């Protein structure tokens, strides 16, 4: 080392000691930083376990009182303290199903437009505009749905549906009853607009990842734009598209405020999608602060647990699908 040669022995030991403490400090701060990041990671882990634990503990009284029949009972009576989750679960599934029936084809078609038809300079602006739909807070969808969309449905769309399907076997009960404006169809429709940007964004990303050679080969055979999309792009990206759809479904299942405004909060299971109903999240949002008595509160928390389990499964499938596509791309 050069210092040794220049400075002599006595000074070198001092410098070496200083150097050693400095290095030691560096090493310690290095370890401290790494451990800090590790603690943060454990905090994220603890968060999820905390959510699950809190929900399970909170719902014990309700599950003890009603057992598994909680899930299949329609009654929801705060006065007699008799609670069943069937109506909210049914409402959650029906509204989400309506949302997906509308949002999946529309979302895929928009992604098709953005990747195959849209002029290049327009792609980014349109994609951003669609994504802005995802940025609008859900309470805005709610207030808009209640004051603008529900009256519109009540006046123009619902009477038409009721008249058209009156007497058609099967469909007449689906579109039965007075046109309230609010109800499961309205909620499902608003959910569809809300999940549309998620489905579009992910489908567009996976469509863009299709190797151009595949598409060019199909075009070279004389395929039309639609045929290329249907027979080349879609089969190639199927897993990713399913992942995106599941992600959207996860959103729809758990969406609270927009639905709370327009669902009508009626704890009934009705075959008509025009009828008011309730969803798990809407029940909790509407009733939790007013719930008196441990059993009432606990039943609402049990609803939350059911919602969490359902969304957990759906989201886990979504992640698994998207991960599989990533590995395939590698």
């Amino acid at each position, binding site marked *: 080392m050069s210092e040794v040669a220049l400075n002599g022995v006595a000074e070198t030991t001092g410098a070496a000691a200083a150097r050693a403490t400095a290095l030691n400090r560096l090493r310690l701060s290095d370890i401290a930083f790494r451990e800090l990041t590790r603690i*943060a990671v454990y905090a994220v882990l603890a968060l*999820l376990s905390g959510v699950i634990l809190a929900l399970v503990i909170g719902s014990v009284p309700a599950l003890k009182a009603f057992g598994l029949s909680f899930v299949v009972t329609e009654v929801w009576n705060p006065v007699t303290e008799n609670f069943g989750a069937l109506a909210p679960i049914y409402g959650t599934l029906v509204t989400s199903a309506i949302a997906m029936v509308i949002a999946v084809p529309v979302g895929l*078609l928009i992604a098709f437009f953005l990747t195959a038809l849209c002029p290049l300079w327009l792609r980014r602006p349109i994609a951003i505009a669609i994504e*802005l739909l995802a940025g609008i807070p859900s*309470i*805005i969808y709610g207030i808009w749905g209640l004051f603008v969309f529900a009256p519109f449905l009540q006046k123009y769309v619902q009477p038409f549906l009721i008249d058209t399907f009156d007497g058609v076997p099967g469909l007449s009960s689906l579109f039965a009853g007075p046109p309230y404006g609010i109800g499961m169809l309205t909620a499902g429709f608003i959910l569809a607009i809300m999940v549309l940007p998620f489905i579009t964004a992910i489908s567009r990303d996976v469509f863009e990842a299709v190797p151009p050679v595949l598409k060019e080969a199909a075009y070279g055979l004389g395929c039309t*734009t639609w045929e290329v999309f249907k027979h080349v792009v879609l089969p190639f990206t199927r897993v990713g598209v399913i992942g995106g759809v599941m992600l959207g479904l996860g959103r729809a299942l758990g969406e609270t405020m927009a639905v709370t405004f327009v669902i009508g909060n009626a704890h009934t299971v009705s075959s008509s999608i025009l009828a008011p109903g309730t969803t798990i999240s809407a029940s909790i949002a509407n009733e939790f602060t007013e719930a008196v008595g441990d059993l009432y509160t606990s039943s609402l928390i049990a609803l939350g647990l059911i919602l969490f389990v359902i*969304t957990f499964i759906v989201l886990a499938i979504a992640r698994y699908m998207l991960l599989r596509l990533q590995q395939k791309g590698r």
Partner: protein
Amino acid sequence: MADSRRNTLYAARRLRNTVATSLAYGATAFGLGWLVLILGVLLLHGFGGLSLSVFTENTPPPGSAGGLLNAIAGSIVMTVLAVVIGTPIGILAGTYLAEYGRHDKLASIVRFINDILLSAPSIVIGLFIYEVMVAPMGHFSGYAGAVALAVIVIPVVVRTTEDMLRLVPDTLREAAASIGLPRSHMIVRIAYRAARAGIVTGILLAIARISGETAPLLFTALNNQFWSLNMNAPMPSLPVVIFQFALSPYEEWQSLAWTGALLITVTVLALSIFARTLTARK
């Protein structure tokens, strides 16, 4: 004969293509139409109520005029606290995932769990904070509201931090290591600096996300009709006030709800557009 059959087949394929592409055009117009419709209605209803008193007066009792001052203040205070709590945890956890644990088992589990938290229903987060904070403390509070929002901030920041750090080229890391820089210094001085715009974008997106959140505040911060910055007491927030006022039968309240809705939407959209331009420039 064969020729005409080929022609009809070709015509059918062309027809199908025309129908499908028109549908795609239609779908895009449909999607964009909703955006225009929602923003238009919001401007129509909200703009009329916009006046100085919205920012200088507190929420009124039913049937009289007033403003949204206390709600705006409450929202800002809780959002700031949520970001202060959530951002460091989020950045550190994201750092572990991108720098230390790229391939280890813990990281892949946490990555999965973080994705679940990212899309978990926000009302469930509200229930969770109610159970662990509101119930033991015995009352609703601004603290509980802020922590609930922080729980939503964390996964957003974790995700963007990890993604942005991964975009930093490994050659930079190797260069730092080759001059003997300890790993933590390399991360703080080089990787963070290279990924700064992206990490800030993540924080902005998180703020955009929580400034419109209503569900997790309903039974954590609750609401408060009066001016209050006491975080240990129930605290008003813009989204919860909108929820309460919009569903009320009073016209003044409904009009304030529309104005508040306009304020939130403009804030959120401005934040997310600004966040996008920040990364787009890079």
